[in-house]
């Protein structure tokens, strides 16, 4: 029989991967009789929805694109590197 500490760990794990069947069963049995862990499971699901609802700017997100200077720098560097390659066989 699971205790609540174990159950909450399984609840969290079940959000990321399919639990082995016996763990899944133990977790479900525990949830049948434990209202607090039932709430915990529902609340983690709510937390997931809530996090996904956050507008992207709300989070500490690094901008997703290279700046044009960045691109220029990169192209210059790549060009240098290509020059250093051994000459191709004809």
């Amino acid at each position, binding site marked *: 029989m699971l205790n609540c*500490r174990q159950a909450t760990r399984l609840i969290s794990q079940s959000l990321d991967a399919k639990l082995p069947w016996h763990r899944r069963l133990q977790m479900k049995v525990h949830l049948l009789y434990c209202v*607090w862990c039932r709430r*915990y499971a529902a609340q983690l699901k709510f937390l997931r929805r809530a996090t996904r609802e956050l507008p992207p700017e709300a989070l500490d997100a*690094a901008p*997703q694109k290279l700046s044009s200077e960045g691109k220029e720098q990169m192209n210059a560097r*790549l060009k240098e590197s290509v020059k250093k*390659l051994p000459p191709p066989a004809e």
Partner: protein
Amino acid sequence: MSFRHPATGGADGRTRDSQPQSLDFGLSSGLDPESWVERHGDDLFGFAAARVRNRAVAQDLVQETFLAGIKSGGGFAGRSSERSWLFGILRNKLADYYRLQNREEEITDTELLLSEERGAFGTGGLGKDGWVMKLAPQAWETPDETLISKEFQDVLRSCLSRLPDKVAQVFRLREIDDVSSEEICKDLGVSPNNLWVMLHRARMGLRRCLEVHWFENKQRDE
């Protein structure tokens, strides 16, 4: 055969967008690195930036990826292989970066109570390691409006900001970007064991933070 830049349907049979002539690197192998930055730069950068959360580092990693690509020569057919090949190199660079950044200690004793669990489970409630009643999950009222309420989002953001950097990173990848656990482990060089511990801590902490700072206040006002 040196590379020109036909508009579409060039003599070599490849279609490509017209490119500035100044990017002709004059390379005559199967690669055309002159197109890499335009074609793949932003996507690779976005991928890296989401994981390292630092523009300069992300740019360096992408740069190193391209350089490694040039050095290794490639020799494959088709655009899609080129892209996944470059992503593969980037993933390795990311994993190396993370290994350098964090000498990771394996959390071996999972029977040991995590700090977030300490206090929450005791000998009350349902017996050994049951919820301590004071900290046991309360009933939450979660109408749909809550999710979009600005006040609630402020509280959630504030709770999220309390997570330690690496945990926040992993949580964000998993919960928002919906990256699979396997991929996170691979990309960041995190062991599956450490990953579940981090996510469990994050969730337990966030849940309690929301409970205290949103739901308890709300219920009290009614």
